[in-house]
């Protein structure tokens, strides 16, 4: 992986930005041709929204304010999912009995899309934070659970046996072998889980009666036919999702390099 001349003077990868450029050009051309801001607004009108992230939009709050509210909800629901899924995944990975007890239920609930729970969430919790956290937690729960399970099962038997012969008890095996050994895979689960949680919050905020969040901002802008705000909101959702994912990936590369190299 050493730096070579070729590595330094690698030509700029134009192919990577080709499609985004095409999309932007196409957008500019089409919006000029259509000339109707209620169908496809101009780039500048969207940029106008994006460059003023702190100003209020039609009494619905600002772009940044709503994004922060959404992010807060995701973190809450995601945390709930972590607290439930990680210990359960470890227990299922460590004990055949626990696995057999939970497996059929997990397999049954897993394919249900999180949004199918929306009506039930409304019935049980009414409109509000609890219902949203519920939806988000369900979305993030399964990828975290399954990856934790996978990670625990992928811990090498001789890692555990080496610890046992060196005198480790069950608790030390858990904290010093299983957890660090499974962590890279658990981390993948967290990354995927967060991605799904982020999709869920936007959808959950479109539930009737919600009055804040980036999802609310988008759906509300639809009522007011502010297509430029809708597009600006979508772009913000994409950027935040990408940003969080990059942070997860960055930590993965820094901390869990051994998973790729220890072959």
């Amino acid at each position, binding site marked *: 992986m050493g730096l070579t001349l070729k590595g330094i003077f690698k030509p700029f990868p134009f192919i990577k930005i080709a499609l985004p450029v095409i999309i932007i050009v196409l957008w500019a051309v089409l919006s000029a041709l259509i000339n109707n801001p209620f169908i496809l607004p101009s780039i500048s009108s969207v940029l106008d929204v994006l460059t003023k992230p702190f100003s209020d939009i039609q009494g619905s709050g600002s772009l940044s304010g709503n994004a922060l509210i959404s992010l807060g909800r995701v973190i809450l629901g995601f945390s709930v999912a972590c607290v439930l899924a990680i210990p359960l995944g470890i227990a299922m990975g460590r004990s055949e009995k626990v696995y057999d007890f939970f497996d059929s239920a997990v397999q049954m609930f897993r394919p249900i899309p999180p949004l199918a729970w929306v009506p039930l969430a409304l019935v049980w919790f009414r409109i509000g934070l609890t219902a949203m956290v519920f939806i988000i937690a369900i979305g993030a729960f399964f990828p975290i659970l399954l990856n934790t399970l996978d990670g625990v099962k992928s811990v*090498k038997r*001789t890692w555990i*046996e080496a610890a046992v*012969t060196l*005198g480790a008890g069950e608790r030390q095996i858990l904290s010093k*072998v299983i957890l660090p*050994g499974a962590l890279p895979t658990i981390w993948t689960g967290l990354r995927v889980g967060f991605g799904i949680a982020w999709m869920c919050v936007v959808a959950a905020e479109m539930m009737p009666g919600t009055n804040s969040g980036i999802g609310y901002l988008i759906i509300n802008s639809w009522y007011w036919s502010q297509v430029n705000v809708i597009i600006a909101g979508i772009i913000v959702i994409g950027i935040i999702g990408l940003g969080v994912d990059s942070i997860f990936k960055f930590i993965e590369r820094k901390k869990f390099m051994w*998973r790729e*190299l220890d072959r």
Partner: protein
Amino acid sequence: MKLEINHISKVFEEGTEASRALSDISTVVAEKEFLCILGPSGCGKTTLLRIVAGLESATEGSITLDGEKITGPSPKMAMIFQDYSLYPWRTVIENIAFGLEIKDVDRDKREKIAESYLDLIGLQEFGNNYPYELSGGMRQRVAVARALAIDPSVLLMDEPFGALDAQTRNMLQIEILKIWEKTQKTVLFVTHSVDEAVFLADRIMVLTSRPGRIKDIVPIDLPRPRDRTSPDFAKIRRYVLSLIDEHLIVQ
């Protein structure tokens, strides 16, 4: 230190079928002895070692160490695996200190002990490296240091050099003998290489193919360091080989 292996038999039951892996293995291992357990693959030699280590239970018979019956892993014994089994998220020095960490030895002390074993295996400069940055031979040396760090009286080695190339293997054989002489441990060393066994052992326990029975126990009193090319070495090697492969006798 006195390690006794008394009439060990092992039957694996898989569903309704039972298969016998080991049959009536007995020997007494003397203090500071280097005992090689040799046999064809599938003869149950690794199973025997795992039973001694307390990782598996025998169907019949018992293992006693200093008069105490072994029912689980003992702090007086440490095992070294063929796949090194180092923790890839820990540096070399942290790997060596692992057993001490388990025993709650305080940080300063365990760092000091780990450093001294790092010296012993000659990898002083690699303390802060990760296992994946090391060659196979170096990794196995680290595994040896990790086992030694808890100061066991018996080292159990399960085909430790099996995954290494011939040259590294020969080098590590010399090194393990040096370490053995320096640390005065008792060693049980499982291998399928006749050459390796004759080079290393005080005695070789030769097992038959499945179910493993003791074919013979061969004492080797050649002085160390042993010369692989000497006629005496060749004679013993030929004899041990004949125990494993019956056809050789006919020739």
